[in-house]
């Protein structure tokens, strides 16, 4: 048991190492270099650029810089942002909670919508609902999220004026202005109304693919012998579906969720941009536009750590749901 987790952990660190090497090389071999954005600025001379490059340590050879970066990163120092001069870790940690908040909310929306749709489609195969769900999932998978986001903004923010078009919270929002009794609800609504549209946009493709997957997984399980056994022993159909079948059908879905995590982060980049959500994705876009190497590296590494931890968690969940894995492994 312990040995296997040690091996998983070793794999995790190895993956991080490969990812860092890859991203570093990618950034390094791109044309222009870190100072390229100053080239067209007439106020900054060649000498200034050289001096700046020296100050950031950019005059040293690339492999050496990689090892310096690696040493610092292991010690928890992700370097300094070229743009702001602040530590990269601080910049990211300021933005990360917003991204995680959006992703968590969206994750729950996806689960709450996708799983029941999948179950109902599977238990009512070839019904009208099943066909609608199948078509719906195709629509969800094919919708360009930015277009869908703009549509929602136009309908709910501009036309109906129900929800704010972007941002995370009203800057001058002051809960103490409300009576104590309704204050929790006001705070909840204040957060929800900003979250709602971006979270739905981010959930869309997940709902599409997870509901389909849940359906086929459920169908797979329902045709198994042990479901027949449960029925033959008089377990009522509801319990057969929601206890015996669901437990087994969820197992592959958990794996899929783990695999979909990178896509979730990717979706967050676009969604944050549309809804002016002050998260890590927006930071990445502005860093990419400004060639802020350290921030780019930092975000990639933090994301990789989160994804790999998420996969580890999915793995643990899988083991919890399917006791066979522990036995065979």
């Amino acid at each position, binding site marked *: 048991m312990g040995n296997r987790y040690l091996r998983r952990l070793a794999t995790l660190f190895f993956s991080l190492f490969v990812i860092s090497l890859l991203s570093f090389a990618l950034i390094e071999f791109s044309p222009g270099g870190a100072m390229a954005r100053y080239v067209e600025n007439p106020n900054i001379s060649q000498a200034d650029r050289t001096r700046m490059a020296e100050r950031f340590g950019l005059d040293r050879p690339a492999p050496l810089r990689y090892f310096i970066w690696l040493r610092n990163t292991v010690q928890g120092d992700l370097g300094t942002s070229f743009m702001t001069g602040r530590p990269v870790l601080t910049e990211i940690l300021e933005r990360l909670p917003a991204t995680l908040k959006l992703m968590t909310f969206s994750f729950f929306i996806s689960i709450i919508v996708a799983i029941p749709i999948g179950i109902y489609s599977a238990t009512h195969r070839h019904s009208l609902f099943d066909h609608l769900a199948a078509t719906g999932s195709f629509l969800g998978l094919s919708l*360009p999220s930015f*277009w869908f986001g703009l549509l929602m903004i136009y309908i709910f923010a*501009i036309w109906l004026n129900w929800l704010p078009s972007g941002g995370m919270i009203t800057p001058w929002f002051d809960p103490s202005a409300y009576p104590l009794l309704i204050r929790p609800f006001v705070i909840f609504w204040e957060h929800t109304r900003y979250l709602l549209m971006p979270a739905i946009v981010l959930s869309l493709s997940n709902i599409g693919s997870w509901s389909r997957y849940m*359906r086929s997984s459920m169908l797979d399980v329902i045709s198994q012998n042990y479901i027949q056994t449960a029925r033959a022993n008089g377990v009522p159909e509801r319990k057969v579906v929601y206890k015996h079948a669901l437990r087994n059908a969820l197992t592959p879905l958990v794996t899929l969720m783990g695999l979909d995590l990178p896509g979730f*982060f990717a979706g967050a980049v*676009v969604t944050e*941009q*549309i809804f002016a959500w002050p998260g890590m994705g927006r930071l990445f876009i502005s860093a*990419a536009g400004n060639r802020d190497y350290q921030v780019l590296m930092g975000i990639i590494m933090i994301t990789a750590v989160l994804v790999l931890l998420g996969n580890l968690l999915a793995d643990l969940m899988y083991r919890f749901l399917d006791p066979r894995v522990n036995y065979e492994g």
Partner: protein
Amino acid sequence: MKSGLLYDFWRAFHKNRLAALAGVILLAIFFLAIFAPVFATHNPTYIRLEQEQIKLPPTAAHFIGTDNLGRDIWSRMLFGARISLLVGFLTMIITVIIGVAYGAVSGYYGGKLDFMMMCFVDILLSLPTIFLVIILAAFFKPDFFGIAAIIGMTSWMRTARLVRGQFLSLKEEEFVMAARALGYSNCRIIFVHLLPNVRALIIINATLLIAQAVLLESALSFLGFGVQPPQFSWGSMLSSAQYIVFLKEAPWTAFFPGLAIFITVLCFNFFGEGLRDAWDPKLKNY
């Protein structure tokens, strides 16, 4: 064999109306894109900044209005389709070439090499590839071919996995043993003997890859990292609608190009699913 595939294709699409419809719509879109100059009513890059020419709602002169620089959106959509579809197809070709070659080698040779190659795929898959795409696109400022190359180089992993899985089981078949016994080279066995067996799977996958590529390219262009002016695609036409004021004043500039992306992607997905029904009943979700 070929006629078998074609026959299955015909039979399935005869039954699956939705997939057939998707195919027809796709053909119509290709047609419009190829003959864009014929159908365009205006010069798509002609900028007219007079107050009465910009952000015009749909009228007789401009089917679906003009954008913030007074350009005719209908004409721009026709020409934008060329870039969007071209990038989609190019990306698909690059992805398929890399993915198939990688997966075939990994699956055919198996063993340690396979383990290491798949390890690498797993690592790449645990990274949101859009990050790499954005970095490359932002630094290189590529043209449409560059965009296709960048997307292709970062999205071949799933295709590689798929092909690898097929090869892993196929190489145990007797005809491969026979080919080996006859002394054919590994290269010949992979490309002449094994590859035709996964043909259907690759075509299905390729169709879905185009859908994904069109989506990714449009997202990239929307974010401003895609094709750069004066080139434009459907995605970059939406880019300016990021500004709320603009979206409020001229929603049609965002609506129609997005709808075009949506319909195209949807049709590719439906068509791919139709192909899957026709050729690979095993993969169907019942």
